[in-house]
């Protein structure tokens, strides 16, 4: 197998056929009037319930398996499972998605989404009346972000996404939201994905991603994105920050990545990372000005961190401070091509680097030397449908009534509140059933 740990950005494909498949069931644009719709007591399916619920209302879903895909287009609606582990939406390995929210103020919580061919839960402003539309046309026309203003205010909380064909939990062209205390495994692209936004106002915290091709991926999501206190361990690649010309808003910049555990990302029980990456904690491809602070980055056999270019976009001015590096093939590596050399990436402490003279102290500006990385043998991918299932995940408990609409802005936590996590951080949520 060719060991080329170059990061090639991947994006979702929303196949037009998928939209056509969906539209048969979701073309009604009428809004319901019920404050609370219980499934299956008041409505046989979640899709029916979503049609009946009033803006600001709640769909409460009892334990059970729901073979459907749900399009949520009513404002300020909560879809909540009564039992996170037993309220299961399944794509049965044939439907593209579980829940897609295209309305502002969506709350999706305390349920499981499994076995979709594309994504478990998607929040996106990029859609037409029938559902999500191809975010990038067919790749030959430029996306006009003004035509698709971002969806705003969302919360994905205590959601389990397992064995999904592209992404587990996914926010694209979405602003001012939270993805927290959720779990993703067995995704053939990434467990979590935040993409295409500026001044995003997005918080990703308390999540676990394992046995995915990539644990968490950010493509072109910039400025106010905070990724704090997550466990992205035991994937092929722990996390990536990527600039990608296939979507709007290059380059990716200025995320706060603090207090995460990126460990042992060399998991064979996971789908292949399609460009062959393996054994990598964090990949930054054409990303700039990210602050990576107090993360534990350990046991990644190829590299703890890899810097690379995206075409002509350099990985630049990323600052690593207070991170705990340990037991990586090399702690920090730069494989950028000469046409877009990495520059000004700096680190404190004494991480090992490739090449040896890679780093300058923070803050830095100088262009940096690069060297190819030693590859490793890459195990074959496991089918996303066959990756082992997660252990039971913590439940939010009984529903206590409709919460107030989500606020216009997420209150970001103080990064100082996230120390270097211990090696067993969030370990209780990790493992296989």
């Amino acid at each position, binding site marked *: 197998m060719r060991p080329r740990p170059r990061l090639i950005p991947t994006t979702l494909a929303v196949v037009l056929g998928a939209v*056509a498949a969906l539209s048969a069931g979701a073309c009604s644009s009428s809004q319901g009037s019920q404050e609370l719709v219980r499934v299956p007591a008041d409505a046989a399916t979640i899709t029916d319930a979503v049609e009946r619920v009033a803006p600001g209302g709640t769909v409460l879903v009892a334990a059970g398996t729901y073979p459907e895909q749900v399009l949520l287009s009513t404002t300020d609606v909560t879809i909540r499972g009564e039992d996170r582990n037993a309220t299961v939406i399944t794509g049965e390995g044939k439907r593209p998605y579980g829940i897609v929210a295209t309305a502002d103020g969506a709350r999706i919580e305390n349920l499981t989404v499994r076995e979709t061919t594309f994504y478990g839960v998607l929040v996106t402003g990029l859609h037409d009346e029938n559902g999500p539309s191809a975010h*990038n046309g067919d*790749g030959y026309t430029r996306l006009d972000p003004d035509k698709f203003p971002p969806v705003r205010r969302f919360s994905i909380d205590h959601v389990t996404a397992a064995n999904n064909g592209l992404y587990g939990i996914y926010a694209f062209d979405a602003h001012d939201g939270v993805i927290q205390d959720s779990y993703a495994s067995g995704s*053939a692209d990434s467990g979590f994905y935040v993409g295409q936004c500026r001044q995003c106002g997005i918080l990703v915290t308390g999540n676990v991603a394992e046995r995915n091709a990539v644990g968490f991926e950010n493509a072109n999501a910039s400025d106010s994105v905070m990724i704090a206190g997550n466990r992205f361990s035991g994937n092929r690649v722990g996390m990536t920050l990527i600039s990608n010309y296939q979507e709007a808003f290059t380059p990716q910049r200025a995320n706060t990545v603090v207090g995460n555990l990126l460990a042992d990302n060399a998991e064979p029980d996971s789908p*292949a990372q*399609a460009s062959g990456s393996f054994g990598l904690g964090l990949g930054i491809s054409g990303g700039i000005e990210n602050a990576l602070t107090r993360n534990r980055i350990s046991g990644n056999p190829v590299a703890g961190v890899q810097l690379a270019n995206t075409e002509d976009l350099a990985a630049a001015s990323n600052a690593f401070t207070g991170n705990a590096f340990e037991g990586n093939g090399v702690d920090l590596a730069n494989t950028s091509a000469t046409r877009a050399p990495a520059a000004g990436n700096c680190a404190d402490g004494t991480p090992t680097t490739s090449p040896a003279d890679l780093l300058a102290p923070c803050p830095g500006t100088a262009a940096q030397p690069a060297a190819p990385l030693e590859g490793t043998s890459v195990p074959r*991918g496991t089918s996303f449908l066959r990756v082992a299932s997660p252990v039971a995940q913590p439940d939010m408990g009984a529903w206590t009534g409709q919460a107030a609409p989500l606020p216009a802005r997420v209150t970001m936590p103080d990064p100082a509140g996230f120390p270097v996590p211990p090696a067993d951080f969030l370990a209780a949520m990790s493992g296989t059933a």
Partner: protein
Amino acid sequence: MSPELSRRSLLLGGGALVAGATLAAAGAAAAIDQATPEPTGRRLSAAGRTQAGVARPATPQRNALHAVFAVPDTSRLQRDLAALGSAILALLDGPSQTPNPTLPDGPGDLTVHVGLGPRPLRAIDPSLPGATPMPSFARDDAIAADRRDGDLLVALASSDAGALRPALDHLLQAVPTLVPLWAEHGFRAAGEGTVARNPLGYLDGIIVPEGQDELDENVWITSGPLAGATVCVLRRLRLDRRAFTALDVPARDGVIGRHADGRPLSGGGPRTQVDLQAKTPEGEYLVPARAHARAAHPSFTGSALMLRRGYAFDRGPDPTSGVDDAGLLFVCFARDLDAFVRTQLRLDEVDDLMTYATATASGSFLVLPGFSRTRPLGSPLFT
């Protein structure tokens, strides 16, 4: 991607829809030129908003001669271009009854277009498209200096291979100061539209801009004095056919990203676009990570989709190395030089096909806007 709904079949599909679109385009203000298919061999007008031989005829003639020159004296350029343009019009658009000693059988579908390289463009105005030479790509150091970045391109194409050299020699009488650098006679396999089998045996020219709107969006400069111009890149690529055909067929398909009959490895018919996202359940791309069709896909570089109309060449064994000097004269057109440059830089990094290609000549040219008896060739550059 569902083949029924791909862009290609939307364009090629319902006859009524396509006809409607063509009618609409004919009236559009931004429309630069018509690209309706012409029957092979039919005479084409040299005059027009754009030069002939770029997008018209829609099916490239089977033979071409690309001739590249040095321009020793750029101060004469305006006069030289005008003289060359007049000679082209006289040769091709003259009354058909007049006896024509250069082309005794008449011009047929002969087309000629003219482009300027970086050096003369810089001399006129360094901000012109194509005025900056291309960077050196991987292994370009091996290209002889006089086969890189020539000053002027005269590209002739015809169904009749025998018409090319006489026509070129005749036209050169109008511009005696040009110094020949290199020229290549090229031939195309039988094909339809831009699609024809290339020297590696694969259908090539499938994904290109088609129809008025796509050409205006990707190929033509549509506004300002240079409206109707385009940027052409020539790369004479010697291909190691022997090494390529030593691969088994699935491995060859993996290098290209399509089967020899054009079907993408991601499924669909011979004209379907590749689906870059399609994966096996195990997470491997169906169109491999280092396949040419993935590497060259314009979405990764955010570039225009180039119009590719390449020609095969074959000059037998190289006298010094004994290696077959045969391959593809890659010819593309796009509204800016960046489309090619960004793509080639990417191919150098991620394309397995480049292992089999060695560039032996290279150049970029601003193909000038169309001309006529009242609008001399090159005149928009000097206003």
